[in-house]
């Protein structure tokens, strides 16, 4: 029997509850020989800023136990480059586009959001107020009122669904999620990477040129699951859960914790088809356990 996998994030309809994670799937065209984007629930593209950014110097990434540290530094061609060079490829597919937007001040966020709205460049905007790899990047998601300020600034210039991407690097994520909801966010995505570092004992140097980086992958799954669970107990808007999802079982755990949709992040580096295969696996889980709709298990953990 067919199961329903479709979910809604604000007004955006996803055919499956699995999107790509920003920064872990490029702009979609890199994998054109491998991935049919129309099979994704949504495609969330890499952070796109007002101006082009070169990013951090190498080394930018290293492996840790069951995890990956990165300090990419938001390398991207800027919003106009996105609209001209990236969007046309994406729009060949029948799939919603989420554009991840970082910024250094409310004006930057609003500028990019406005350009995306004017040009039809996105179906939802994910506000990256939680990137640990650039100065000021993380600051917004550490304080409820700053989170609210950014969301309000963007809300004023767009009718597109707004997703607030939150950071786990805070004492309590709940008041921040609540502030995002109150300021008009249509959804919350979490978690962004966990701040950390790695040291090379032989060379006695940091492994990353940036010294610190953001930790992703299975190592952070327990942290992410708890963040999703806590936020789900706090807000009424949908949650896009991520952090260490490697397979459908992991994804189901996030949905049980309260996520309406999930993102395949680091796993796409290993298997660029992961987001598609995970959606298939969620359908199998539902069937095997006698459910007909993914909504039946959202937040169902006991």
């Amino acid at each position: 029997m067919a199961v329903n996998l479709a979910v809604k994030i604000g007004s955006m309809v996803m055919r499956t509850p699995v999107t790509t994670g920003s920064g872990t799937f490029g702009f979609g065209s890199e994998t054109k020989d491998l991935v049919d984007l129309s099979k994704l629930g949504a495609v969330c593209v890499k952070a796109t800023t007002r101006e082009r950014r070169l990013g951090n110097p190498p080394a930018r990434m290293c492996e840790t136990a069951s995890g990956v540290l990165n300090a990419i530094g938001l390398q991207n061609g800027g919003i106009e480059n996105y609209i001209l060079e990236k969007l046309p490829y994406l729009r060949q597919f029948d799939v919603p586009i989420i554009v991840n937007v970082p910024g250094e001040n409310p004006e930057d966020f609003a500028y990019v959001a406005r350009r995306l709205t004017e040009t039809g460049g996105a179906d939802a905007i994910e506000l990256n107020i939680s990137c640990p790899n650039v100065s000021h990047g993380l600051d917004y998601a550490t304080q409820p009122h700053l989170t609210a300020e950014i969301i309000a600034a963007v809300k004023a210039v767009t009718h597109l669904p707004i997703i607030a991407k939150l950071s786990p690097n805070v004492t309590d994520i709940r008041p921040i999620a609540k502030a995002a909801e109150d300021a008009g966010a249509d959804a919350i995505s979490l978690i962004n990477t966990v701040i950390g570092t790695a040291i090379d004992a032989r060379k006695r140097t940091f492994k990353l040129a940036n010294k610190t980086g953001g930790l992703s992958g299975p190592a952070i799954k327990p942290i992410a699951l708890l963040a999703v669970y806590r936020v789900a107990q706090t807000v009424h808007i949908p949650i896009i859960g991520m952090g260490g999802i490697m397979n459908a079982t992991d994804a189901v755990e996030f949905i049980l914790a309260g996520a309406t949709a999930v993102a395949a992040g680091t796993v796409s580096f290993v298997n660029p088809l992961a987001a598609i295969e995970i959606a298939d696996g969620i359908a199998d889980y539902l069937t095997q356990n006698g459910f007909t709709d993914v909504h039946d298990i959202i937040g169902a953990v006991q």
Partner: protein
Amino acid sequence: MQALAAPGHFVLTFDDPETARDARPGHFIAVAATTPANAGSSILRKPFSIFTVDREAGLCTILFSVYGPTTSTMALYKPGDKLDFLGPLGGRVFEADPHSDVHHVMVGGGYGVPPLNFLAKTIKAANPNAKVTLIYGARSANLLVGDDGLREAGVEIISCTDDGSLGVKGRVTDGLSPLLAPPAPDNGGASVHVYTCGPTPMMRAVAELCTAHNKPCQVSMETPMPCGIGICVGCVLKKADGTFSRTCTDGPVYPATEVTWQ
């Protein structure tokens, strides 16, 4: 599917007609060596250069040495096991014109030797008269691997060992210098084109020597590659123009003049 090339070194043969057909010297594959026994011990794929291809048989090989989880697991593979890989990967690979009147000089070290071996054989296969030299280095003779079949193909081999246990005593640049110095008495006057792959300090020394002698040099970068397919932007090289280039899909091979060595 597996043969020991030297202590701790393995040659792994895999059956994939498409890769055998499409792979060019400098291309690599990204291997995920995941088994129930090692689940989670290494998350990312690891890149390995194509070492040899047999187009007729549809077979390819990679040559590897054992470091961490991926290569330790690969060393346990038995004939019939399935290799989980993406490839052939790489945007820009070695460019060589087998028919031009140049002396092709390859300079390699460590796991930089396999792709140079592939390049040398490819040039020789296209033009048996091409002048091809492979200079390669290791700490000692028993770490020298990857020259299988080259002598038979007519490639000149100059080995350099730190301890002098084989060939030239010293570094690969000690083997390379005489070939670059004008007038080049032992290369019949042909211009020299250098291709290098190996540890970064070695490639840097080779590239700087070539620049000093005004010889063209192609370098194949061996930065860690978290994804190998262009989506993580974690493998970048800082180019001379100040931008960052993804070595997996924009490289791994670059003209030495484009590379900064920081």
